[in-house]
């Protein structure tokens, strides 16, 4: 009996540790999620998700990974430890890109196809406001005070600011062709915008509503992920040849770049800062970059059009 209890206890202690090493990858075209053992770099399983899932994000407290299902109008929640589906929230109309305000008051869903931004109360996902946002609202960022959400408008080449107090559009600012990812610098001063139709990151002083700089990275500048040190941010340059650039957010300059073929898109970084994972949209792979050696250490086969990667053992989002 004692032996059995000991064994059960050992298993209980061991299980979370094992599960904590699971990466969840969203395969947009296959409409599934892949589970990857982050130690063996092998896909261990795959589960159906929903209709046309685009983007995933972790809950701010890492209690779940949320998948946005554009065509089936729902959010699917997965346990980040086990990969098991937790729940579905229906009638979230056409969610494409998701975000929580820093104060966790707002949950924002962009509807890229339908030119709209929806504001939900984050505590219960109830719809508060629906704001027209032409054309093709893509990615989002918030100011530190959670008063403004900034949205890139991919087809009208603008950044839209929405005042979260009034729930009304506040202003628009013209940027380069086909803006995609957007990121707020840790000092809350500048917005960085990935200019996918060109080869640079546009730096906007958002209070002055003025573009102050262009940081050349590579063609297809697309998405951002902070390194976790409060100073640097990765930029994925999404083309077939592909690369990821590291930008210094204090000096607003390029530090270095890594070759990451296959259309690197969404990224995730290990807590120890040694590995960067990126979904390669056009290669059906997740590319793992060893940041010490500055090159790809593993290419992991997943489903079609991988469009999001998340694991719980990640670096701080700053």
């Amino acid at each position, binding site marked *: 009996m004692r032996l059995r209890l000991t064994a059960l206890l050992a298993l209980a202690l061991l299980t979370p540790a094992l599960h904590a090493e699971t990466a969840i990858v969203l395969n947009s*075209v*296959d*409409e*599934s999620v892949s589970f990857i053992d982050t130690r063996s770099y092998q896909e261990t399983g795959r*589960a*159906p998700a*929903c*209709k*046309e899932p685009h983007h995933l994000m972790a809950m701010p407290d890492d209690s779940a990974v949320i998948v946005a299902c554009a*065509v*089936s*109008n729902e959010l699917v929640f997965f346990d980040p430890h086990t990969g098991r*589906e937790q729940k*579905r929230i*229906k*009638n979230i*109309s*056409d969610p494409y890109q998701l975000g929580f305000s820093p104060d966790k008051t707002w949950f924002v869903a962009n*509807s890229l*196809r*339908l*030119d*709209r931004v929806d504001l939900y109360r984050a505590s219960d996902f109830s719809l508060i406001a*629906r704001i*027209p946002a032409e054309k*093709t609202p893509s990615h989002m960022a918030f100011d530190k005070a959670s008063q403004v959400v900034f949205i890139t408008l*991919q*087809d009208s080449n603008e950044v839209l600011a929405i005042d979260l107090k009034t729930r009304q559009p506040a202003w628009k600012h013209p940027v380069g*062709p*086909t803006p995609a990812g957007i990121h707020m610098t840790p000092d809350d001063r500048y917005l960085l915008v990935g200019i*996918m*139709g060109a080869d640079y990151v546009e730096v906007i002083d958002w209070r002055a509503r003025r573009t102050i700089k262009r940081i050349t990275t590579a*063609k*297809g500048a697309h998405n951002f992920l902070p390194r976790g040190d409060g100073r640097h941010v990765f930029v994925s340059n*999404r*083309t*077939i*040849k592909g690369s990821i650039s590291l930008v210094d957010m204090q000096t607003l300059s390029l530090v270095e770049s890594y070759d990451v073929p*296959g*259309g690197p898109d969404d990224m995730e970084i290990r807590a120890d800062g040694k590995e960067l994972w990126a979904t390669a*949209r*056009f*290669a*059906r792979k997740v590319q793992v970059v060893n940041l010490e050696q500055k090159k790809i250490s593993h290419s992991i*086969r997943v489903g079609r*059009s991988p469009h999001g990667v998340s694991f719980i053992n990640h670096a701080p989002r700053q």
Partner: protein
Amino acid sequence: MITFLTDLFVATQGWLFDRLVQPVLFALGLASYVEMGFEGIEFVLIGILELAIAYSIMRPLEALWPAERWNGRKAVRVDVLYTLLNRLGIIPLAVFALLAPAFMALDGWLRFHDMIPRQLEDWLPGLDTHPLLSFVIYLLILDFAEYWRHRLSHTFRWWWALHGIHHSQRQMSFWTDSRNHLLDDLIAGVWFAGLSLLIGVPPGHFIGLLVTLRLVENLSHTNTRLSFGRLGDYLIVGPRYHRWHHALDLPPGKRYRHGCNFAILFPFWDAIFGTLHLEQQLPPTGIHEDSAEALAARDDFWLQQRLGLVLLWRALNARRRSGAL
């Protein structure tokens, strides 16, 4: 082996995209369409694969066990052209370009006013996590809809004016499947895509559903004596079954006045709706052309397109005069 083939497919897709599509999109300021362009290449590659499968299986069937022997295959050439336009994505792309903005505007308006169309999964929630079952159910629904689209295209005079082009081929082969008037293709596209959107066909299923239907349609038009046997002909549409649909002379009986065997995939639709006709004999195919212009158009793409529009115009005028359908 599967991994190797998948890698080869993905590498080819990437290479074509990198060399042909991506530079053009960036040059034209259309980076927003990068994902669509990449998936478009996949659509074309799948079309080429489909053609390769059809040719390598169905052409030998036509050579070894033909339903009828021909002196030459010149009459088939125009059908090859239709097939290339269709399978290489040119016609589907045109249909998509015409339809997508309208569908998007309607969908956007509905959802902006909190009208989210109910989808199949709202009634059968389990389908969310059972993709294979979901695929089969959507296949059944779409096949049912295709049965009625097909039957109606034989029933309404104006529609038959267009669809008759498909039936005018007297040397029916696996290439004949794509021989359709462009306007008929457009109507079929609206029908198929409209229903798919309405019932919420998962985009991930879409190509699989399309390929399944298209391969069976290729096979059913094949000029071969092959059949699936007495039982099999009731289970899936095959060459013998579909040959009666293309018969030069329809079977006798009032219920066959507009035709028989309209099913695309599953014959039970014909059985249920009283249009099934099974016979061991293999009839000659085609329609009785009664005009010089129809005879001239038999093997000519542009004349067929023109003829379809002329006949459509006449049918609509006749309808207006008589006040009938």
